[in-house]
Each structure stands twice: as structure tokens, then as C-alpha cells.
């Protein structure tokens, strides 16, 4: 075996070893690396109730309620299968609106309501000019 051959095999073993380690690590940490839980995952009991967690999903259309004279808002987070009530009091990101994807950090209280202490907006991977969105909305109302 030439030294070059030897080095080639060594690099090959190194790469395979790393790949296997990575696959094992990733599958082991699958849950811990979740940045947020969806309402369905919470309904299935995948998230711990007493610990602080993050919930992610869309703000359900028509569910947003603002309390007069305060910053408090109540809304439902949905993943189109299950939904979960969220209450929050504080400053919201610009993108926050009904139908928008959000991630809220907080705890589920005894009434089964998610009390958020931080809300982040999650934007999707679609980019288009405003006119294109207007055209899409117009097409939707025609249907």
C-alpha cells in the first residue's frame, strides 16, 4: 500500500466516522433542538407543561382580541389541525397580524392558556411585490 493510498483511506475513515457521529447526535438531540412546538405537538403531550417552552404557528384569522386601554392581547395559535389560546402583554414585532406565523415564549398556566412573555414573528420563504399579493387576494375573493 502506498503512503498516498493510506492517507486516502484515513481521510475516508475520518469522514465516515464523522458522518455516523453526526447522524447519531442529530437523532439523539432531535427533540432538544426544536426551537418551538406546534399546537398539535402540545396536544399530543410532547411538550413539558411546567417548563418554559415556545409555541409556534399561525395567528388564527378572526381570533385576535385587544383589551381596551392596555397592551394585552389574546389570540389563538393554529397549525391548521389544532389550536391553542395565547395571551400576551407587550410590544409586538411589525409583522404580527392575523394569519402571520409567530413563535411565542412562555408557560402554559393552570387554565390551559399559554402566557407569553415574548413574541417573535416568523416570516415565510415567499417574496413578492405588493401588487402580486393584491392580485392573489383578488383571485381568492373571485373564487
Amino acid at each position, binding site marked *: 500500500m502506498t503512503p498516498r493510498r493510506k492517507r486516502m483511506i484515513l481521510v475516508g475513515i475520518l469522514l465516515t466516522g464523522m458522518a455516523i457521529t*453526526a447522524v447519531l447526535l442529530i437523532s439523539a438531540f432531535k427533540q432538544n433542538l426544536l426551537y418551538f412546538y406546534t399546537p398539535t405537538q402540545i396536544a399530543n403531550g410532547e411538550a413539558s407543561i411546567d417548563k418554559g417552552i415556545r409555541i409556534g404557528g399561525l395567528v388564527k384569522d378572526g381570533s385576535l382580541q385587544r383589551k381596551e386601554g392596555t397592551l394585552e392581547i389574546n389570540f389563538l395559535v393554529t397549525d391548521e389541525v389544532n389550536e391553542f389560546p395565547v395571551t400576551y402583554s407587550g410590544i409586538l*414585532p411589525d409583522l404580527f397580524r392575523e394569519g402571520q406565523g409567530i413563535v411565542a415564549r412562555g408557560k402554559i398556566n393552570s387554565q390551559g392558556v399559554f402566557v407569553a412573555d415574548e413574541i417573535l414573528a416568523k416570516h415565510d420563504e415567499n417574496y413578492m411585490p405588493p401588487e402580486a399579493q393584491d392580485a392573489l387576494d383578488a383571485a381568492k375573493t373571485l373564487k
Partner: protein
Amino acid sequence: MWKFIHKFASPKYFYNISGKILPPLGWVTLALFIVGLVGALFLSPPDYQQGESVRILYIHVPAAMLSMSCYVAMAITAAIGLIWRIKLADIVAWAIAPIGMTMTIIALITGSVWGKPMWGTYWVWDARLTSELILLFLYLGFIALQTAIEDTRSAARASAILALVGLVNIPIIKYSVNWWNTLHQPATISKMGKPSIDASMLWPLLIMIAAYMCYFAWITLKRSRCELIYRERNSSWVKKMVKEAS
């Protein structure tokens, strides 16, 4: 084929040919940047949701793409240097490292500036952002290891192994948005099926990506030449060239 590669890997031949490629490549890069930036900052429309802030996309996405492809290029050249003991490959890997690191820093900073108005935060520890930060540390480790070891050949060998080990992070960055729930949105351009970016915004983005890539090629050649002439300073062809020039 092998003959050509060996010829190309000879320091003198590489020095001469790269000297010829550099000027036109530099002009192409400049032209692409001008067209791309005018398209990105003036001609493309604002986004339906993000408004004018979307223009960070044209800086952020190419930098993030390059931060990963630089790493792959660096790891491949380092591996070639490790296996075939080609000096030029070591030099190119060394030349790429700070470029890739800069791209990573640009991607992280622009992403953070973009995150504040859109997400409501500069930084979150989600899988995409964290793995990109690890990439920065890998570049730093590679550079630190290279500079820590006096002998260039053993420095190249040690850092090549580090580069290969770190390669595992690249698919993690790329697919983090698909494997885990992250705050960062999934990929736009490489998404199969319906296009998720409007044509009026896609063309400046593609030109910017091409501009970044040409810049990467240009600066890599330039840095490699400098390092090459430095490492070969005692060889006869360099001495002869210097004598002729002076």
C-alpha cells in the same frame, strides 16, 4: 488529464496563468456587482410583507451561500493537500479561510440586522443560526491552527484534518430549517415546485450570487498568488522573476 492537473499544480505555471485570469475576472466581478446592486437597491420592488427591509436579502443570501461553499472548497483543497501532498492545494485552502470567515460574519450581521425589524429580535438560538455561528468558529479554528504551527507543512496537515471534521456542519446548516422547527424560514430558491420568489426579485438575487462567486474566485486567486510567491521566495524561478523585474 493527470498531466494537466500536475502542470496546473506547479507553482510557476499557476502563478503565470492566474496572472492572466485575474484582470478580466476582476472586471466581470465589478460589472456584476454594479448591475446586481442597482437591481437590488433600486429596480426590484419592495416585499408585500417586509417592505423595503427585504433588500437585505440581496446581501444576506449570497453571503450565507458563499460561507458554506467556501468551507466546502476549503475542505476539499485541504484534503487534496493532505492526500497528494500538493503544496498549491495547501496554499489555496489557506487563502480561502479568511474569505469564508468574512462571508460568515457578513451573513451573521446582516441576518441579525434583518431579524430585528422582522422577527423582533437580533438573535435566537435556533438550529440555523447556531450552526452558522459554529461555522464561524470552525473558520477561526482553522486559521488559528495554521498560524499556531510554525512549520507550514505540518500546519497544513493539522488544519486539513480540522477542516474535514468540520465538514459535517455544512449539511446541518443547509438542512437545519427542514429538520427542525426554526425561527429562520426554509430555503427559497432551491425549493421544488412553485417558485416562491417573484421574478422581479429573483434576477437581482441571482446576479448578486454570481457577483459574490466571481469575487470569491478573484480574491482567492489573488491571495493564493501572494502566499505562493512568499512560500516560494527561495526557489530559482521567483528569484529570476524578481531579478528581471528590478
